[in-house]
């Protein structure tokens, strides 16, 4: 259910198509080694699982999935009340020499990804780190760019993009609304 003052940019079908396209791109650029998809909580996690499923379907080789909580590495912890921590689960043999693809729902300032890179660094030394996002909404504050972008959606600063995924929100979609709504 989409409340008023919110505009739907992608519906469920469009989300599914976008994820499928991204999966194909990831397969192309990471072949022959299967990548390690690390979802950044919250919505990066179901997204990573869906990408991994599609990658397994299309290439016949399953991709490993994990989650990487970046709360402890945020640069804005001191500005808000204590944040709850989320799960971190990595493969038992670590990330050394792995081809890691960080997965998140929206790429905005780039600070979340920067925190993820800091976190990764302390777990080991991947062969390479790439970034997959469902939506790039612009307004980068750091020199960070995504390798796989589902959709480029230019926005104004006073707008907010929300990615809805049925695992957490009961429905799939991408909506835009005024930030103060």
């Amino acid at each position, binding site marked *: 259910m989409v409340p008023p003052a919110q505009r739907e940019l992608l519906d469920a079908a469009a989300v599914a198509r976008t994820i499928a396209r991204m999966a194909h791109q990831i397969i192309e650029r990471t072949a022959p080694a299967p990548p390690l998809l690390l979802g950044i909580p919250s919505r990066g996690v179901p997204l990573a699982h869906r990408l991994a499923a599609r990658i397994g379907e299309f290439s016949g080789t399953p991709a490993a999935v994990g989650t990487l*909580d970046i709360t*402890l*590495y945020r640069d804005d*912890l*001191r*500005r*808000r*009340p*204590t*944040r*709850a*921590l*989320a*799960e*971190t*689960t*990595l493969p*038992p043999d*670590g990330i050394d020499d792995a081809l890691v693809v960080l997965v998140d729902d929206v790429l905005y300032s780039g600070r979340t990804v920067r925190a993820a890179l*800091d976190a990764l*660094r*302390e*777990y*080991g*030394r991947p062969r390479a780190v790439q970034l997959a996002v469902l939506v790039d909404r612009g307004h980068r504050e750091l020199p960070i760019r995504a390798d796989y972008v589902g959709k480029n959606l230019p926005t104004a600063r006073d707008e907010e993009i929300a990615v809805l995924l049925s695992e957490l929100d009961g429905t799939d979609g991408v909506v835009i609304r005024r930030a103060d709504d």
Partner: protein
Amino acid sequence: MRHLLSAADLDAPTATALLDTADRLKQALAGREVHKLPTLRGRTIVTMFYENSTRTRASFEVAGKWMSADVINVSAAASAVAKGESLRDTALTLAAMGADCVILRHPASGAAHRLADWIGTESATLRAGLAAHVVNAGDGTHEHPTQALLDAATLRDSLGTLAGRRVTIVGDILHSRVARSGVTLLTTLGARVHLVAPPTLLPTGVRSWPVTVGHDLEAALPESDAVMMLRVQAERMHGGFFPSAREYARDYGLSEARAALLPEHAPVLHPGPMLRGMEISSAVADSPRAVITDQVRNGVHVRMAVLYHLLAGVEEVT
């Protein structure tokens, strides 16, 4: 959360949040090359221990360092305290030097509360821009909230949940801050607590605590989902609480035969240090049922979680 002074200050959601954070921190540290988190970098934590304790102080020090904080240990004997400086002056001095957090262990019940009054909310210290947080690492026979948290974490690991579980605590309840904090926190988290001790080691008014009380250890064990043995603290007693160590061990000690009365799933906890052969036999202490080393390990993560909740975010204005 500004200070952690007593388990009584923690409601169920807050206590659960602390335990969940401890779990997440344990997870976050697993499998790392660099066994450190940057979150409290640049924060200064001072441990002020007026009582000897290697394990608790080391646990707090490790917890602070694993969060990248600077940890400084002040020991009463070696400091101005030995020259007669009052607790209040020592506290104000440390706060003035820039300590973000003071972790206090002191032989006087209520010392941490007084410390919090002096440096936590005093208008004088706030005016000077100081806003130190206080963690009670054990005050006299009053409270030891981080011990209660790590015991709860260990019980959660063993039993899955605390709600409705029966936890039996055995020993010198009268002089035990671990028991007081434990009773409060376990009850808050939904467990049912049963105390077993000789009558002389039970506090007056224990019948008004949210617990059941008994003197028969063997009757209590088959009904227990977990048992916590307390050290019989010789140094706190002024005599006359029980006739001899032999009688205490015989009537209230957890022997192998008694441990066998416990249900399969029930773990044995002990806050340490143990007096083997007194409240717990060596065999039981070393058995797979005893989770004492888990307690110690959880202690570090729990203390990291406490420091995280006190120091990482901005304080909520209530």
